């Protein structure tokens, strides 16, 4: 990356920020089209900035571009769509593309786990809740954002700070950080990148040896949160109305309630 690449990145982020700002729901008068155009431009610019040094040489690189583009687009739609259901489904898209990116990084187990946990379980419950809470017309909270300008400013400044820094860290090779890492020499020997053991076995070994305590704690955490969620769900709320009168058993089915 040339020294100007960092600055170019800032420009791209600024463009993207304006785009996202325009895309965020703002009630009447949102400039969705302009936002989409700007955002698309920014995305394309980001890809092309990255592409100045990564040429598509094999399928891995191509897939990286494809899935990262999908992930970013999906993320933008998650935060800009006015319907929560769509947000959730776009998030499923993000999860799937992130899983694909993990596969590209030889983290197949994590990728599938991500899909199973997120897409399979978490998001379904989200959808469940969204659907239960859905009203006929989109409520104002979905059509309007809360201080979108400040939020976008803060978020994109942070993004620029982090990503720009990452972009500046290396000049030629993406492995600079890895090579500069002091831990490399001591820890790399643990699990070679391509060994005879598969990824699942490797992660199993890591979790069951070095991180065994953390793993147990994670299990306890899940248990606790499960208990907590059940307790929350069982809690009677003060605003809950008393149970409606039931139709006497003998009359069930005699009168069709008006739907």
């Amino acid at each position, binding site marked *: 990356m040339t020294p100007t690449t960092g600055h170019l990145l800032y420009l791209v982020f600024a463009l993207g920020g304006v785009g996202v700002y325009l895309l965020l729901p703002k009630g009447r008068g949102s400039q969705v089209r302009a936002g989409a155009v700007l955002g698309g431009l920014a995305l394309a610019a980001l890809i092309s900035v990255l592409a100045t040094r990564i040429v598509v040489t094999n399928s891995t690189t191509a897939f990286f571009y494809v899935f990262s583009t999908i992930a970013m687009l999906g993320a933008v739609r998650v935060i800009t769509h006015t319907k929560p259901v769509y947000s959730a489904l776009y998030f499923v898209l993000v999860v799937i593309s992130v899983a694909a990116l993990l596969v590209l990084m030889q983290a197949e187990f994590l990728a599938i786990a991500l899909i199973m946990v997120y897409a399979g379980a978490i998001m379904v419950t989200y959808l469940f809740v969204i659907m239960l809470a859905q009203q006929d017309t989109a409520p104002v909270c979905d059509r309007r954002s809360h201080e979108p300008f400040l939020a976008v400013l803060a978020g994109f400044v942070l993004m620029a700070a982090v990503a720009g820094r990452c972009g500046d860290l290396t000049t030629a090779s993406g492995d600079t950080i890895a090579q500069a890492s002091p831990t490399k020499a001591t*820890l790399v020997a643990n699990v070679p990148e391509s060994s005879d053991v598969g990824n699942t076995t490797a992660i199993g070994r890591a979790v069951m040896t070095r991180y065994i305590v953390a793993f147990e704690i994670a299990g306890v955490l899940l248990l606790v949160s499960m208990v907590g969620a059940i307790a929350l769900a069982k809690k009677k709320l003060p605003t809950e109305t008393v149970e409606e009168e039931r139709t006497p058993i003998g009359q069930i089915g005699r009168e069709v309630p008006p739907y």
Partner: protein
Amino acid sequence: MPGIVEYLILSAVLFALGLVGFLSRRNLIVMFLSTEVMFQGVVISAVAFAKFHRQMDGQAMGLFLLVIAAAEAGLALGMVVMLYKRRGTLDVDVWSSMRG
């Protein structure tokens, strides 16, 4: 081949997008979705470090991130349902009784 920088930039972008969503959207559920997007960014960076440092720690972290996300989602959804039952709306702005 994409290097660690590309993955980190992607991770930062996802994280920041989630952040923007969390900060600007008013629907409780969408806010939580945005935090999940942030989680995705973090998972990417963790796994990227794992790959480019050639060790499994990052992936183990990714696994724990999943655990945390699952726990958080369960509790958060329970609370969202409670909040919704109380006020009949998912608008986070009705929960501003701490206003100075």
